[in-house]
């Protein structure tokens, strides 16, 4: 089922949780709503579910207005961060609940309910826990049961509110891949909320980056990571280094390094900030013909396939650490040790005219 959001706004007292949100969700896709806390992502999810009503705007399911449809009729599956399993029921009854509360005329027969619940418990690989109670299960198991319970009513949309937020790192990673696989098998339109950029980039087909009630960028994980639309997205998605410089008529200067900046052809001597990812910085022991920025190695972290260097720029008031990631081979070639003098050059960067943020 496709979902369309039109001009959605929502206030909580004086706090604007959503400001004029417009969004199209394609049928069958797995979409991540990513943002810091207070960005409005959970509110948006709850409005789509029908757990919250927006002050203005519309929610359309399959091009039909669902704005004032009660949650019971929306056929959404909702998964909560803290699982919200029914503590007074066994695991089996939890999963069966949605089937048992149906009006008599379209309720399944007892045998059919039993079959479907058993199948779902097998799907989440927890059929051996059917007679237990929620408090006897681990967090990861509970969340899988919560998912099975949501799927039992054959929802048209699956909505997940920080589904892995309360789990420890290892379980979180496992469930993440598991959710991706499950989605690939079932092709049910799914939206999940997260503040973990790694999770959003790894699992989803598309990412919606939100901040202060607005959408900052919509795109595939590659797009939002490689081509962030603005400084906020840049800083929110992964590590990034900031260099202060100037742009003038399509050229940019950071220290002595001059760079082409054709997208800023009209800029007239503007202060600018360059955003560079740690793996987009070249490190060398000698100045390589053209200009480069001198820097000093202050810390080396060489665990794993990628070596992380921390540098400080020389002859610059900016004492911020510059994070650089190079391959292990390159690190061996350079034979760097702490305190070494190096030259760095951004391989790829994005320039944004200076603004206060």
């Amino acid at each position: 089922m496709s979902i369309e959001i039109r001009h959605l706004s929502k206030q909580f007292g004086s706090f604007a949780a959503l400001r004029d949100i417009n969004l199209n969700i394609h049928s069958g896709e797995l979409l991540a709503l990513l943002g810091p806390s207070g960005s409005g992502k959970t509110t948006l999810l709850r409005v789509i579910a029908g757990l919250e009503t927006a002050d203005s705007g519309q929610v359309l399911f399959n091009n039909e207005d669902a704005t004032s449809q009660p949650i019971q009729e929306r056929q959404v599956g909702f998964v909560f961060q803290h699982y919200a399993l029914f503590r007074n029921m066994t695991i089996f009854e939890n999963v069966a609940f949605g089937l048992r509360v149906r009006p008599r005329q379209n309720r399944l027969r007892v045998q059919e309910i039993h079959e479907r619940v058993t199948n779902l418990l097998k799907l989440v690989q927890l059929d051996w826990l059917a007679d237990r109670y929620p408090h006897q299960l681990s967090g990861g198991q509970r969340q899988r049961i919560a998912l099975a319970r949501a799927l039992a009513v054959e929802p048209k949309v699956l909505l997940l509110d920080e589904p892995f937020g309360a789990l420890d790192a290892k379980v979180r990673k496992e469930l993440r891949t598991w959710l991706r696989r499950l989605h690939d098998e079932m092709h049910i339109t799914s939206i999940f909320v997260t503040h973990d950029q790694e999770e959003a980039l790894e699992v989803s087909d598309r990412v919606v980056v939100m901040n202060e009630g607005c959408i900052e960028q919509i795109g595939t994980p590659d797009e939002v990571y490689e081509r962030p639309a603005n400084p906020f997205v840049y800083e929110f998605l992964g590590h990034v280094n900031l260099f202060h410089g100037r742009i003038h008529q399509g050229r940019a200067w950071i220290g002595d390094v001059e760079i082409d900046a054709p997208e800023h052809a009209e800029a007239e001597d503007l202060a600018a900030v360059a955003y560079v990812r740690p793996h987009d910085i070249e490190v060398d022991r000698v100045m390589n013909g053209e200009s480069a920025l001198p820097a000093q190695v202050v810390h080396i972290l060489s665990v794993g396939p990628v070596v992380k260097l921390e540098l400080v720029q020389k002859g610059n008031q900016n004492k911020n650490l510059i994070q650089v990631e190079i391959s292990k081979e390159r690190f061996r070639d350079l034979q760097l040790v702490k305190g070494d003098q190096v030259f760095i050059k951004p391989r790829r960067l994005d320039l944004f005219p200076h603004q206060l943020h």
Partner: protein
Amino acid sequence: MTTITITYPSKVQRTALTQEPVWVRWGLIAIALTFLTVFLFVPLLLVFYEALKKGVDVYFAAITDPDAIAAIKLTLTASAIAVPLNLVFGIAAAWAIAKFEFRGKHILITLIDLPFSVSPVIAGLIYVLVFGLQGWLGPWLAEHDLKIIFAVPGIVLATIFVTVPFIARELIPLMQAQGTEEEEAAVALGASGWQTFWRITLPNIKWGLLYGIILCNARAMGEFGAVSVVSGHIRGSTNTLPLHVEILYNEYSYAASFAVASLLALLALITLIIKTFLEAKVAHQKGELNHEH
């Protein structure tokens, strides 16, 4: 199967920094025990001793006396009306306070606590001022031949007033701790409001609710002050058990008075036992929640 033997140090150093000297600990325990014995346990024993002093026949004669039976009936009637009403009100108020945000929430909480802070005698007087012959509604009630003060309705009203906080007060923290997520999950799965209440909310609060009912009932049956003001002390008609005890005592029928009082004491003991049992259950219901998060 392998056995693992855990050895503890044979002598554990017992002088932790938070440990008070022995005489302080025993001193405190002795004070508490003496206090409880003198002020609670001895009087309770005395009630049963005095009640049975003149023999079992006198005891049973006292509690099967028509006036005593009438008092028992009235007490049961009053609590049979007051407790269910407070049950409905308590759940409704606790639900509203715990699960919704609205203006005047604090005022509602304060109002629920009012019967705790107002003297029961004042509560009785309020009803006399409103419904009594000289009260606001007195003339109108007299015209329509309705009797509230010095009649059963007044006693029921006074009982309801003093027992309002018990159930609501017990449920509010429990429901607040449990939050609204389970209810949200239920409606998302297609359950109606009623289904959600009967299948999710009520089972989750049942032990706390029962606890509140027990306390509410004990108070409803034992209330003296408020009921005394509105009752008029008409024997066999508007006397509840506590009032009947007082009348008998004032007439120097000590044995009969203590016999009837022993019924109330018994009620207190039973309440205490059920309460202890329920407290463990409520703690468990809250504990499961902590476990879950």
